[in-house]
């Protein structure tokens, strides 16, 4: 699931080498923290957050497929 999110984000951005996805296990599920180059933030968030929400929707489906429980995808702006 982390691999899939990383794949999607790298495919969306202009600077794939700057993409970092860290996985944090919490009691109620997994948090995937996504970091990208500043100029790529718009590409992974999208107007009204549509792209970020699409990534979340696909991640949830992948979590269901692997029985991975709840997954939250957060785009981190440092």
């Amino acid at each position, binding site marked *: 699931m982390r691999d899939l999110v990383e*794949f*999607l984000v790298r*495919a969306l951005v*202009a600077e*794939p080498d700057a993409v970092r996805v860290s996985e944090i296990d919490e009691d109620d599920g997994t948090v995937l923290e996504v970091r990208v180059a500043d100029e790529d933030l718009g*590409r992974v968030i999208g107007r009204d957050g549509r792209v970020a929400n699409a990534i979340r929707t*696909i991640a949830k489906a992948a979590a*269901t*497929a692997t029985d991975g429980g709840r997954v939250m995808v957060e785009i981190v702006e440092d």
Partner: protein
Amino acid sequence: MNERLPDEPAGRVEALLDEIVDALDLDAEVVVEEVEDEIAARVEGHDLGLLIGRRGQTIDAVQLICYRVAFRGRGDRKRVSVDAAGYRERRRQTVERQADRAADRALETGKEIELEPMSPTERKIVHDRLAERSGLETFSEGEEPERCVIVAPLVGG
């Protein structure tokens, strides 16, 4: 992983869908066809419910990401559609039936009928379907993703 996405939009769509099909553990085949004004991709296989999602929200998310990835950094954009096991056509027929029933009820009762929340594409199917019916108007209300079509009898219609 993902180090080399193809340069061509259709190739990018195919690579993306292959990866998603794998991640969702689906036994399915990806077919991508490009015509003048559209890249049409479809996933063929059994048990694709997980890829489609509730009210198609997962397949719509996949379609949006495919479009963004296909034409990132390019100016020559065209439509990208992603279908799974004939879902789009089945859904179109379902939405048209709902539109017809709502129109009948609106005319019978003289009251506004609110359809279930739909995507922009689905709402357009309703508007188009009922455009020719007299005595009615259709419009959309609410915020995405709960935005829905209202079928309203025209006063004096």
